[in-house]
């Protein structure tokens, strides 16, 4: 019995050490964001007591790079992607889950193949295309390709979910005289709410965190979303540790808050999506 107790304690020690490795870096960044740069470099582990300052945040928000505006840009881009993906993937998934048609398996296979290749492998022709459509430097130039990049994932999750929904409910609705749009809006959508929420969270995170397209399409500071702004700051002021810490804190803390509120859905959604894909 005693041996058992020791091993249990050991397990908790190992697990807590790993948890420390995933939690402490973020705590460190947030704490140090309130210290002047030279204090971070000379004493990284002290708490900001005598030298507490908001300067780093002030620089990040009101300085050359306006992080608040970057948030707004990120919100515009990522929410649009979520809405477009939910709409198009929702329609396609309903068709794939409920109808039998000739090219069904081909469409499904195509969706999976499209999920496989990384977006940076098509970057040159894609950029050309965006320029031709006059989308260079515009939010839409990020929104549309990101929608294409995420729609496959959403279709796989949503199709799987809608297939499980009982057909009888829809049947009785049709008998009562409902039409297809009514069934979609008043039955399918509410019943598949959790699956839609899962995909929405995933797509939002992916879009918010993606750097590649943002960096390529949006070159003007005023339209840049958060990841692109962060990279700009780092390439210019990479040695200003205070500013870096404040910027990293500003980009991660809102996401972390959302994560703590929705952790169950987020963890389940992200892993379920990966397994089904």
């Amino acid at each position, binding site marked *: 019995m005693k041996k058992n107790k020791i*091993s*249990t304690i050991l*397990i908790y020690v*190992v*697990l807590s050490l*790993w*948890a420390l490795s*995933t*939690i402490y*870096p973020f705590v*460190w960044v947030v704490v140090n964001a309130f210290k002047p740069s030279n204090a*971070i470099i000379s004493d*990284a582990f002290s708490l900001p007591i005598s030298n507490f300052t908001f300067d780093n945040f002030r620089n990040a928000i009101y300085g050359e790079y306006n992080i608040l505006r970057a948030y707004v840009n990120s919100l515009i881009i990522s929410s649009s992607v979520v809405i477009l993906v939910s*709409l*198009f993937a929702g*329609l*396609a998934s309903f*068709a*794939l889950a409920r*109808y039998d048609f000739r090219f069904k398996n081909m469409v499904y296979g*195509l*969706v999976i193949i*499209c999920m*496989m*290749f*990384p977006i*940076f*492998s*098509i*970057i*040159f*022709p*894609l950029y050309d295309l965006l320029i031709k459509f006059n989308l260079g430097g515009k939010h839409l130039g990020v929104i*549309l390709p990101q929608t294409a*990049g995420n*729609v496959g994932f959403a279709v796989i999750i949503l199709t799987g979910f809608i297939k499980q929904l009982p*057909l009888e409910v*829809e*049947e009785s609705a049709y008998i009562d005289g409902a039409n297809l749009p009514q069934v979609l809006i008043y039955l399918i959508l509410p019943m598949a709410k959790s699956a839609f929420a899962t995909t929405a969270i995933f797509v939002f995170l992916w879009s*918010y*965190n993606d*750097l*590649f397209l943002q960096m390529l399409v949006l070159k003007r500071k005023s339209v840049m979303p958060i990841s692109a702004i*962060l990279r700009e700051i*780092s390439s210019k002021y*990479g040695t200003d*540790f205070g500013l*870096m810490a404040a*910027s*990293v804190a500003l*980009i*991660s803390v809102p*996401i*972390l808050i959302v994560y703590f509120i929705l*952790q169950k859905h*987020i*963890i389940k959604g992200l*892993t379920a999506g*990966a*397994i089904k894909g």
Partner: protein
Amino acid sequence: MYKSKVIPYLFILPMFLFLGLFLIYPFTVNIYNSLFKFQHSLDPNPVFYGLKNYVELFKDPTFKASFVNTISLVLLVIVFQTGIALILSLLVHRIKVFQTFYKVSFFMPIIISATALGLMFNMFYRKDGGMFVQLLELVNIEGFVFLDYEKTSKAFIFLSLPVIWQYIGFYFVIFLTGLSTISDELLEAADIDGASSLTKVFRIQIPLLRNITRIVLVLAITGSLKVFDLPYIMNPTGRPNGTLHFLGTYMYQKSNAANIGSAAAFAVMLVVIGFLMSSISNLVFRPNQDL
């Protein structure tokens, strides 16, 4: 009900347009472009070049280096990322309290953008005053250089470390889900027969995780081929002399080159390599129908 021949196509059309326009069409253009030599990126009359872009790519030492680095990363990922994830999941599965706490904290790095993580690790690694450097000074190790570009293999390890660390929690959750589907009765029966914990792990849990392990490995391998953001933020030009490039970062650098045919060939290779790797791992870890 649901017999219409028109509606399914109508519903699929918008998605199909997006996939076709923004993924399939550009990829087809890449295949086409890869067969031509361009003088500059807007060259209206590229010269047909056959497969020479591919041949040149294989002769390019930086491509070789980035390929070797990416394969090395894949190996590190298989051993450490999935290994640590498996161990952590076996441990968390055994405990009764704080399961959710560990799950939430292990998963945390995944939701943070790789850009932010890259900047964070820049702050940790920096030669004078980086957090890790100061941590080592606390235990009297002075002057340790993390991204030491004179010792490329050491620098490679520390460039890969954040990539590996970030996604351990992801595979941990997948393993944990797999473990929870193994019936308790099986483990209780083993207990009655006097099996030790280690016997249970190696004779029951790990064998029964076979299908999950296959999924994890395929994901981890294809994921590491796509690695871009983190190494790009930490070492955008693959210093020194491109020897520390990964396929993703080198491909990005190439896309600014004059001959876009070469970049296109690179992109096609990347997809081919990805396809080969996932087919190979699917073959090696073939799903066991009995499970």
